[in-house]
């Protein structure tokens, strides 16, 4: 496969973790401008794990997910009472704090005669675990998408269970949920932690795909974009955020036609799209209609 196409497809997969992370919080009723912080935590944690402590990538990725969940929990706890723009700004502030902390973080070791490790604003280079094992780009792409599909499967499963209904209820009407006996605080914290772990997994993979990360990678633009992709793709199904990512990074980015005008086209299209579809492309209404139609056909 052409190297450029490989790169684009891998990026779509990696970004999907971040968009799905934002989506999960949106379903539970919270708008976060800060998921990029956990993407960054995952990237740095996994990078340190493999490049500096000699762990295999799967172990480092799991550790990264745990750290991402913990960080998200730490941010979620003081912000439990906040909603809407208040919550969004709080997550933005938290994410920027994380990013600045990455700028101040220096931790280096000499390995094989070379200095390896995060070096503040200079970033973290030499995350070469994937290269050193001779893993091909195609293989890595397959692994990333296998994980994305796994996550999508998990989402689909949860949607059908009581947990899924509870999550959506907390998102739509937390007062009602509380009256019905749901521990809203615990649900929100759980969702925050899960979303943090998800973003961290994406970050871990991103670090190993790129071999180099720096604090600027995890700035506000990344966070606002991933939130936007989830909202544009639609909150009816986990495929929504993927659609949002694929449309921007996949379709528009890679077509030569829009070179240099990508954002003008994308921005205009999205604004127009939202007029006819304010809840995104694959919103709850559309998903329900499609599901009903499929059910009718099955019983016909």
């Amino acid at each position: 496969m052409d190297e450029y196409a490989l790169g684009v497809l891998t990026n779509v997969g990696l970004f999907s973790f971040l968009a799905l992370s934002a989506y999960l919080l949106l379903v539970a009723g919270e708008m976060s401008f800060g998921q990029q912080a956990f993407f960054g935590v995952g990237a740095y944690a996994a990078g340190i794990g493999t490049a500096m402590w000699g762990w295999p990538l799967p172990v480092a990725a799991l550790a990264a997910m745990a750290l991402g969940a913990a960080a998200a929990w730490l941010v979620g706890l003081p912000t439990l009472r906040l909603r809407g723009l208040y919550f969004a700004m709080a997550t933005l502030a938290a994410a920027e704090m994380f990013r600045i902390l990455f700028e101040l973080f220096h931790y280096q070791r000499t390995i094989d005669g070379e200095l390896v490790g995060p070096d503040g604003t200079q970033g973290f280079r030499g995350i070469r675990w994937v290269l050193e094992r001779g893993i091909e780009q195609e293989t890595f792409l397959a692994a990333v998408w296998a994980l994305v599909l796994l996550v999508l499967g998990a989402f689909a499963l949860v949607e059908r269970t009581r947990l899924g209904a509870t999550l959506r209820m907390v998102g739509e009407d937390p007062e009602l949920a509380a009256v019905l006996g749901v521990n809203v605080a615990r649900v929100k914290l759980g969702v925050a932690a899960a979303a943090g772990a998800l973003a961290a997994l994406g970050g871990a993979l991103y670090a190993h795909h790129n071999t180099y990360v720096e604090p600027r990678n995890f700035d506000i633009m990344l966070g606002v974009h991933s939130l936007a992709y989830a909202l544009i793709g639609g909150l009816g199904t986990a495929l929504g955020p993927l659609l949002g990512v694929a449309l921007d990074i996949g379709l528009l980015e890679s077509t030569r036609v829009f070179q240099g005008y990508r954002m003008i086209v994308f921005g205009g299209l999205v604004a127009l799209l939202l007029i006819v579809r304010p809840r995104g492309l694959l919103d709850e209404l559309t998903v329900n209609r499609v599901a009903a139609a499929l059910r009718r056909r099955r019983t016909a």
Partner: protein
Amino acid sequence: MLVDLLQNTLDGLMLGSAYALLALGFTLIFGVLRRANLAYGPAIMLGAYAATWVHLQFHPGVLVLAAVTIAGATLAGAYVERLCFAPHGRRGAGDAGAIASMVGSFALWMQLEEAATLWLPKHLYGFPPLYDGPPLGLGPLTLRVEYLAMLVCATLVCFGLHRLLNRTRFGLAVRAVVDQADAARLAGINVPRVFMLVFALASALGGLAGYLIVAAHEQVTPMLGMWSTLKGMIAMMLGGLGSLPGAVVGGLALGLIESHSQWLFGPQYRDLIAFLILFALLAVRPSGLWAMLRRSPAPAP
């Protein structure tokens, strides 16, 4: 030591008046339409870029450049309003409309930023200062004329808005809409028109802020868009969402926090401390500094 403290406080207030001007525009939109406009900064940037282009072609005077910036920002703001806020209808149509407007404004943010950088692609453009002379001296303290102008403008704007909202028919209509949009509509007020005018006013204020800021920095960069939105939003939240006096208080507070933090700990810690204070404030007293100052009980956000 004391001189440093005073100078930093003075610098902070000056810087803060820029933030206050930015926050006033942002707050007008949020206070009246109950929606966040993420394309606020980029609209200002487009105005500033228009003025830069005019400067590069014609080298006109200060007043022309200010007028171009304000006009540019207002036009860009009108474009955003028509495309993202007007179609999503009535305020109070629930979260869906607000979120759709916000995502739409994000989309136009990207669009306006790219349009600006395509128009003037350089990383940095020089911009003529407001006043081509030495800074004023107040004893051992120095005061730059541009920043003094910002403080004066912020004060004037504040008073002007107060008069507009409390002494004119338009202001009455705005207050009616803020209170109860549906009742206002029933009383015969053209609510969409009120929204449009408020939006234009807010964009014009943003343009004024933008002009003063780029004249004070004597440069224009592509970062102006996001920077303006971010500072405006932070100042607004610090002061108290949707409150005009809060916007000024928040802006000044942000300026003071940044100025003192930078002096005490250096530029990297400056932003860290500002965000930390914002986060802590939101966690504990989301209603903002203005409400705290007036000793209101903390309402539910």
